[in-house]
């Protein structure tokens, strides 16, 4: 069970006070009507789901009721940082100087997305 530092309350609190809210930094398209069905579907449903460093949103539901972001490793479950809404992470998968699991590299010659 996680022990989470709430950046608004300024202290560690038990996971039971929080709800996870999925991947962080997903912005709603500014002009939804200009989106194709594919782009809109991507916004609604398609996620990074990395095995490793993940930026995700949580809410301190039984507490200050603030949403905030967390950088967490999805295998070790180690919380690398939490930061307020609107801020950017200081730790990312690239900044983590560790060997990347399963060296996820492919020959991508003209991959159509």
């Amino acid at each position, binding site marked *: *069970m*996680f*022990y989470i530092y709430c950046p608004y309350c300024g202290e560690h609190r*038990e996971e039971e006070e929080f*709800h996870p*809210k999925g991947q962080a930094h997903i*912005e*709603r398209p500014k*002009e*939804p*009507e200009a*989106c194709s*069905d594919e782009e*809109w*579907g991507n*916004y*609604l449903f398609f996620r990074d789901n990395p095995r490793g460093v993940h930026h995700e*949103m949580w*809410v301190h*539901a039984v507490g200050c*009721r*603030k*949403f905030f972001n967390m950088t967490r490793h999805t*295998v*070790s*479950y*180690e*919380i690398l940082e939490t930061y307020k*809404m*609107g801020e950017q992470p200081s730790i990312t998968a690239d900044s983590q100087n560790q060997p990347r699991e399963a060296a996820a590299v492919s020959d991508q010659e003209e991959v159509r997305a």
Partner: protein
Amino acid sequence: MSQSKQHQQQAYRLNTGGRIDRSRTLSFTFNGKRYQGHPGDTLASALLANGVDIVNRSFKYSRPRGIVAAGAEEPNAIVQLGSTEAAQVPNVRATQQALFNGLTACSTNGWPNVQRDLMGLVGKLGGQFMPPGFYYKTFMAPASMWLTYEKYIRKAAGLGRSPMEADPDSYDHLNQHCDVLVVGAGAAGLAAALAVARGGARVIVADEQEEMGGSLLASRETLDGKPADQWVAQVLEELADCENVTLLPRTTANGYHDHNFVTLHERRTEHLGETAPVVNGYRQVRSRMHRVRAGQVILATGAHERPLVYAGNDVPGNLLAGAVSTYIRRYGVAPGRKLVLSTSNDYGYRAALDWKEAGCEVVAIVDAREAPAGDWVDAARAQGIKIITGSAVIEAKGSNRVSAARVAKIDIDAFKVSGPIQELACDTIASSGGYSPVIHLASHTGARPTWRDDIIGFVPGLVKGVQACGGANGTYALGDVLAEGVEAGIRASAAIGHAAQPVSLPSAERLQQGPAVALFQVPHEKPTLRGPKQFVDLQNDVTAAGIELATREGFESIEHIKRYTAMGFGTDQGKLGNINGMAIAARCLGRSIPEVGTTVFRPNYTPVTFGAIVGRHSRDLFDPERYTALHQWHVERGAEFEDVGQWKRPWYYPQKVNGKTETLHEAVARECLAVRKKVGILDASTLGKIDIQGPDAREFLARIYTNKWEKLAVGKCRYGLMCKDDGMVTDDGVTSCLAENHFLMTTTTGGAAAILEWLELWHQTEWPELDVYFTSVTDHWATMTITGPEARKLLAEISDIDLDRDSFKFMDWRSGTVAGVPARVYRISFTGELTFEINVQANYAMHVWQTLFKHGEKYGLTPYGTETMHVLRAEKGFIIVGQETDGSVTPEDLGMQWCVGYDKPYSWIGKRALTRSDTKRENRKQLVGLRPKDPKVVLEEGAQIVLDPKHAIPMPMVGHVTSSYYSPILDSGFALAVVKGGHKKMGETVYLPMADGQTHEAEIVSTIFYDPKGERQNV
């Protein structure tokens, strides 16, 4: 021998020694026979004292089994506890159950009894037909017979039995926080705890045994030249005096979860009786789960001795060497008379020394090493004990008790017997294959253990904030263990910012020890597959041959081998067997142990009663029941309640008519007609209410709702529909404009909390620039809905609000007083009748409600519940989110285009999704009314709708009934349904084939069945 000796009480009890209180006698019953023991005994030590050899029958082969160990690792002595049905506890480990007066236990297997077990015959005859995985290879023909085979297999399986009555005891949780948690209060743990405690940090020390001290309680070693338990007593005294220290004996750390969250199961009363006692008039909890969040964790969990795997090693009388010592030194019991010890290391020698000192005969020590040398070896020689080197016990003889040991020279590398075999008469064989650190807790965290050749064992992998010391870390020499404990304590203190204080350790004896040899399975003169059974996992009857066979069949990963043979899946989770099993697999595959895999242990370390995990969250406290301010009234009025989320809402109010209580149907018909013809009242307090303030409140509403809000004037209310951004309806309700910058939103009863979070989500993440605040006021207001033609007259009697139809219009709200209480009254309607929703501060609700009844009697004021509310709203075609919708329904599917602001400037939540190819489809399921052709028919809710009822199965379905009721005012059944392309199918006939073979016919009609022009609510 046990048969002949049962009349003789405690024949194996030693006259001196041990930590038992011989001055007091406790009596207990095992398998129907009465025995005696002493305070300080475990059930196991007491059984041994009384010469009870067979404590159980094995699971697969029904072989007689005796006590092997003295602690959590015991695989055999699994008993059923309890003298009454409600107090039954299955699968109690006798080695961990303190003896109490009146304890009643029996074996979990064996028919008709453990002494003479008929299944044992099957095991003997059929044993060879039951290799691992035999059930995968047979019982396949004929296919229909499997359920029959399975019935017999199930009967033979299982250990103890579940009680058949509810638990009389209660349990609870204690949420603990500490700087340092020390798990294990043996030498390492106590040393660590002392170091931490003196530094002033908050420390919890948990130990699973009845007494703290671990192996020091039964050690032959001294500290400062005094018995080690004196040091234990002195340390415990100091710790008990520290305000920053919590000592938890009888407390097992059973699970180690993320971020140093550890569950400690404290057995508070299980040593006292089979149900929890009453102290000072207050009943105690049976056991308690400490949910500990620790800054640092120190694992001082010690090590388990590994038995050697030889033929017949499961016959009663085969014990771990360390267990023999423990029984003699701690419990004053010699578990036999004549001992043969088989060992691969120096530690095992202690059992022989203790045995000899207890006045019993040591037939021989059989040491696998060619030239053992060390202080304990010398001591044994000095005692005149015969030592047979380069050899091992290759087979135990005997059926119900060991009668002899077959001993031979062995060649470990070549895995064969290399010399002549001699048979030594004895009744006890103790074995020691070295130690396995107790790495269980560490592996719960996902950290992989590491193999160390030097200690022939795995040491724990460690995550952040944890350290291991002493036996748990593969350190066994007492002096080193103590020093490591202090170091761990100092490191842990430093990590949480506490200065460590010096701890002067007592001096331990410096013992010379010879190196151990890696011996796991002992070779037999016959090949493993042909020889007598050599057990690896005693509880699951897994043999060395079984493991060999599994590897032959291609099961090469240890995880495969465990699963194919069931090794390690018992209630002991393979504490004794797993490493031996891995070693055997490694031998068969020609690999090293770490190449075969690691053992991954899962919580729990030892099993924990469901009750303790559940805690107080059971029975009346399983889940909160939420009540409105009027709950007392509803209860007194005899309401039946409906669960809506956590709320208890009145469902209907059955009355006694001519001495008979109304049915749901009768009550609802009466309530419905009262509303349609006179006036009814509903407690609507459960609706979610959110106070919205700020200059951008209106803009916010426009973005979050599908419909428009720009022109809603102060004093007005409007219905709103909410979607997720996938365009699917998620909530609805009425929002009122209280002031230009002030709105009150209502939500569905079940959706209240989620909608508040939903609003906050959009405000905090996407639209922080909007100046608006949301506050839940659900509980502040009580809401009483009076509805029906007489509603105005009734309200006028007790309100100072001008209720005139022209000044207080439909969809207006006004404030004033009702029954002398300040109230906001909303003229909105969910029934289609003239309706006033009276909102008062909840503390006044009962007064207002009762006043309404005082005045309402003459108008026929009738309380109605949710069922009537549903009928009335359905007659009007009003939806219930969650009933008409299921997360796949858009506003357009509901025919609610009138509630969609297509041209609002901001692309509100859900709008974009409505133009996706699938949401634009013409033949989407759309909400319609259904009128059964036979008005007496009330269609089943959930009935499926087809166009061709003669179509073969699978029959294409075009929709289903979402709501269906009998309408008392229309005197007919009617329904709401979703039907593919339904909006363009008005007047068409559809069919509803039912499970009973009937097919109903219905016509697609408008969703509004009553007062289609909406005149009644406007009067």
